[in-house]
């Protein structure tokens, strides 16, 4: 196949990828969008085979490795529980990153196969492009591995900080740029390898200071990085499908990070530099005076909700941990039978990744038109009889609106306290991720239900 023709086909597959993302603007069109994405991928792979035109023994190995990788991927995709989605996505990011590194290494070792010159005399522009692809890919890889370990619970979710951390990151970052500059002058393989290794280290250092609840930002950021790495490789290979995709994924991840940061009212740098959680541990100790709370049980909760005319459910990460989404749906079914109007309110940063709660509710067969975003539903709390908070904490804290001293001041929160009564399922009075007490616990209209989210919900189902 001529390179002009294949370039046109790569363009088509790039357009199909755009349509794949466009489909996600509503759940109805999303499945069709996914097929566009698959079609784009098939076109890109077939065109690559045809343009190489080498169907020798190597080709058979390509097919074998494709099938091996594909089977692993398919196996994971079918077996993974929905609650494990954040770590799955982090794991997938790491693979994209590592693949980018490998392709860049291969291009560096054998530039003539890619039409980039010969060993020791690679075109300067290509050298810069592949170095950037390799460096960003390496950072994506090791960063995603750390994110994966934290989300999986293998590594503690609490931030790891040490003195001079940011300075070291800065120095290492500058070193990478310096090495790329020298690489261009010397074409030395040793410099290329050092740059890749330092990039792996930077990825680790970049993610370890970031705490568990900031993971939505981290995952989105790594999503973005994996895109930029792909784009870097796309420039090296002069492949428009890769360039388009890289740009799409890069900007998609960047937008998601922005939305997540806005959901916490924090700047991107504040999150990346690992501010919260670690620094505020001192404040919660001194505010720990015993204030009275109202304590309820499942029967009270069932009684309250059964006699309500409208209930809003506020799920959070705790629901995912307790796997309470199915029990929750049963409870809602019971309430609906009693003629109660039920809706769900989702805070942008609820859970460990963007849209985490929506997927879990969808898994439990909750229709998506009963699930609302913060801006859509926040005014409804004032007219609602019961708010059922399950596994959420900081995102309901009214302090964010009233106390300028609070670290979460200014963060958009769900106006849960405006509803006539609040049922708060929680295991203890311990503060949430931000390390601050939730004012909501002590309100007159709040009834605390101290239990595991799933157990409590199941008990309520029984007493309905």
């Amino acid at each position, binding site marked *: 196949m001529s390179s002009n023709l294949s370039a046109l086909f790569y363009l088509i597959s790039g357009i199909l*990828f755009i349509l*794949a*993302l466009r489909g*996600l*603007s509503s*759940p109805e069109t*999303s*499945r069709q969008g996914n097929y566009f*994405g698959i079609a*784009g*991928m098939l076109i890109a792979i077939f065109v*690559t085979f045809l343009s190489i035109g*080498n169907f*020798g023994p*190597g080709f058979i*190995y*390509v097919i074998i*490795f494709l099938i*091996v*990788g594909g089977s*692993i*991927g*398919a196996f994971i*995709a*079918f077996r993974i529980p929905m609650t494990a*989605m954040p770590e*799955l*996505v982090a794991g*997938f990011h790491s693979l*994209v990153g590592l*693949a*980018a590194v*490998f*392709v860049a290494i*291969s291009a560096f*070792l054998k530039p003539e196969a*890619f039409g980039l010159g010969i060993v020791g005399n690679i075109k300067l522009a290509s050298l810069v492009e592949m170095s950037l692809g390799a460096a960003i890919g390496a950072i994506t890889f090791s960063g995603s591995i750390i994110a994966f370990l934290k989300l999986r619970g293998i590594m503690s979710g609490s931030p790891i900080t040490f003195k001079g951390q940011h300075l070291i990151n800065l120095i290492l970052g500058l070193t990478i740029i310096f090495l790329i500059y020298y690489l261009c002058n010397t074409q030395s393989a040793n410099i290329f390898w050092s740059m890749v290794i330092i990039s792996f280290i930077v990825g680790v250092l970049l993610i370890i200071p970031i705490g568990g609840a900031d993971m939505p930002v981290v*995952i*989105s950021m790594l*999503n973005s990085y994996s895109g930029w790495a792909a784009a870097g490789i796309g420039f090296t290979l002069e*492949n428009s*499908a*890769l360039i388009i*995709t890289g*740009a*799409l*994924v*890069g*900007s*998609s*991840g960047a*937008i*998601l990070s922005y939305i997540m940061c806005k959901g916490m009212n924090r700047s991107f740098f504040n999150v990346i530099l690992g501010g919260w959680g670690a620094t505020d541990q001192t404040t919660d100790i001194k505010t720990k005076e015993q204030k009275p709370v109202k304590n309820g049980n499942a029967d009270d909760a069932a009684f309250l909700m059964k006699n309500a005319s409208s209930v809003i459910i506020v799920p959070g990460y705790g629901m995912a941990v307790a796997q309470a989404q199915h029990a929750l749906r049963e409870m809602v079914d019971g309430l609906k039978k009693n003629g109660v109007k039920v809706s769900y309110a*989702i805070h942008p940063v609820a859970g460990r*990744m963007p*849209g985490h709660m*929506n*997927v879990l509710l*969808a898994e439990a067969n909750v*229709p998506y038109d009963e699930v609302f975003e913060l801006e859509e539903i926040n005014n409804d709390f004032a007219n609602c009889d019961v708010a059922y908070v399950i596994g959420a904490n900081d995102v309901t804290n009214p302090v964010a609106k009233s106390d300028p001293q609070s670290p979460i001041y200014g963060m958009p929160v769900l106006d849960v306290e405006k509803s006539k009564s609040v049922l708060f399922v929680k295991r203890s009075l311990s503060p949430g991720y931000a390390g601050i007490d939730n004012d909501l616990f002590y309100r007159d209209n709040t009834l605390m239900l101290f239990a595991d989210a799933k157990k409590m919900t199941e008990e309520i189902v029984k007493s309905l």
Partner: protein
Amino acid sequence: MEIDPFIFRLSIFILSIFVGYYVVWSVTPSLHTPLMSVTNAISSVIIVGAIIAALAGSSEKIFEVSNIFGFLAIILAAVNIFGGFLVTQRMLQMYKKKKK
């Protein structure tokens, strides 16, 4: 003077960033998780580079160092392509409207 082909690629890149910007803002927040898994899958189009790398060189020596890196990259990207699209499909299958 002729325009460097790099400029064309840069134009595609920058225009795609803009396309991505507008397309992603129109994605409904409830589908942000599928958005991440599908972007994951499509960024594995890097497999194109992996295939070129794996098949580079003469057909007698299939497993030179650079080819091995290519083959490894094929496995990684293939995991991602199949895993990414299938898990996205599985998630999207679950989003249902209220039964009327």
